[in-house]
């Protein structure tokens, strides 16, 4: 089928515009991270006066970035593992069983995602402070408090996606396993999980990204020693003198793991979106 040259030109112009719009900030991040300090303090230049990798070394000392990195890694990993585990069980129940209250449960869980975070933040802050006061369990200012909070953030979407994945797996497989004498849990772990593995990994990446990038709760519920990257990076930009080359180097290093993970698995996320979210 031939298309008119007007359409061809429209495509070129639109795609060029979107490419430039997307790429310029990414380019600025990368190129500024290899500039010497005087380059980022004066007028902007498209190329560095000379290439230096000092910012990638210095960035660890200007603010305690290493500690923030470890905090983020611990919090995001634990939250991911917990939320994926919970979502697997929940997704299994939702996909394979019809039970009273199922619809209500899904509606409530999904609708918690639309509520403004600020609504939970103030009460959660007070609850954490008071739990500490009465039981001595430190949640406010600890990694544990943040882990518990984050694991629920990814949960609704994870349940949704995993249930959607399980739905695409024919029930005949479960029934065959049942006939062979496998119980429900065995069926879940031996039959459903291996088939849904790519989907589970995609969900895990999503959960990790959610926790890795969260800002609001991290800035209220952490203290000096448990601060995450999301809070820590702001420290650079609020200093009297901003080392923008180090800020950009740090941004690049912080972004790389999740961007690579996301791009590698986006195919499965798209599949999950179509399979789970939008039924035709």
């Amino acid at each position, binding site marked *: 089928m031939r298309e008119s040259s007007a359409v061809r030109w429209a495509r070129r112009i639109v795609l060029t515009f979107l490419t430039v719009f*997307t790429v310029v900030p990414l380019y600025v991040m990368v190129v500024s991270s290899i500039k010497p300090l005087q380059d980022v303090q004066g007028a902007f230049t498209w190329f560095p006066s000379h290439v230096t990798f000092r910012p990638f070394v210095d960035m660890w000392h200007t603010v305690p970035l290493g500690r923030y990195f470890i905090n983020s890694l611990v919090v995001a990993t634990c939250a991911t593992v917990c939320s994926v585990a919970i*979502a697997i069980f929940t997704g299994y129940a939702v996909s394979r069983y*019809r*039970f009273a209250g199922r*619809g209500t449960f899904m509606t409530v869980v999904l609708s918690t995602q639309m509520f*403004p975070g600020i609504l939970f933040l103030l009460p959660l802050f007070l609850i954490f402070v008071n739990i500490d006061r009465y039981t001595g369990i430190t949640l406010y200012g600890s990694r544990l408090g943040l882990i518990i909070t984050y694991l629920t953030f990814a949960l609704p979407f994870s349940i949704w996606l995993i249930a959607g994945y399980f739905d695409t797996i024919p029930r005949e497989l479960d029934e065959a396993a049942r006939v062979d004498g496998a119980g429900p849990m065995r069926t879940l772990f031996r039959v459903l999980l291996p088939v849904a593995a790519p989907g589970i990994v995609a969900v895990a990446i999503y959960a990790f990204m959610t926790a890795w990038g969260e*800002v609001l709760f991290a800035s209220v519920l952490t203290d000096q020693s448990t601060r995450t990257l999301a809070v820590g990076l702001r420290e650079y930009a609020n200093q009297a003198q901003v080392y923008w080359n180090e800020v950009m180097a740090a941004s690049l290093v912080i972004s790389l793991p999740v961007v690579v993970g996301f791009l590698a698995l986006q195919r499965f996320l798209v599949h999950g*979106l179509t399979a789970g979210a939008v039924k035709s």
Partner: protein
Amino acid sequence: MSDTITAPGDAPARAPGGPRRRRRRPTRNLLPYVLLVPALIAELAIHIIPMLVGVWMSLLHLTQFFIRNWTAAPYGGLTNYRVAMDTHGPVGKDLLHSFLITAAVTVLVVAGAWVFGLAAAVFLQKPFRGRATLRTLFLVPYALPVFTAVITWRFMFQRDSGMVNNVLSDELHLVHGHPFWLLGGNSFAALVIINIWRLWPFAFLTLTAGLQSVPGDLYEAAAIDGAGFVRKLRSVTLPLLRPVNRVLLLVLFLWTFNDFNTAYILFNQPPANADMISIHIYNASFITWNFGLGSAMSVLLLAVLLVVTLVYLGTGRLRSRHA
């Protein structure tokens, strides 16, 4: 294609004319409930209970003296709501202003993100060389952690060392001198641009997924009937994308309206022109330590969002029933 979007596994029961699966009776099996327990506990602990506590808090005079012992705070009835909604008083006036700013930002961002996403999804539908590369590239802004993306933009919007003023003023001579972007009136534009940059890839991703379900023979039939590009877009693509759009626009709306991160990282203290409502409530609560008032504002925000969402979903359902 039905117009209902439901939880996974829920659809067969309610898809008229679609492939029907026999509706099973609810089991008396306890197992599904046991499987739900962890999720229920997590949701209760972090979402449901704090929300109820929040509603209770909004009825108290919960100031800094009662943070460690909030049950002792005096009951104030609807005083906090009255203060928050009194548009002649300083608190209510600022809240209304912040609400209007947030609404304006949201409209522009949702429209921008949707148009960009649709354009990319439609123009990348047909195979050509470099298509896969562009597809991956367009997703990068969405994959980037918010705070690194926004901090990069903050650098680009610096008055003297930023890339934006360098291009606009020094290279293209479009504007005179170096305007501020993170202060004053331009801060609104900065906030909108950054939000579009971050969100349009999500629209692109969702719409691409939606387009994959559009059968190719519909386009062929339209082409035989002599339909051009615009006609096909209007008569084939957009109607078939309607179920996807319904969810997509709602999600974009809620994300932008509730957004805290962008303004928080971009400005130390958001200027009046970029005073997003989440930040406004956050500041009102943590700077004056009046948690009761802050909670009342949050509950009001939730009420507005709920009404908008229900009206939106309601009109969609009505329209699809009459269509």
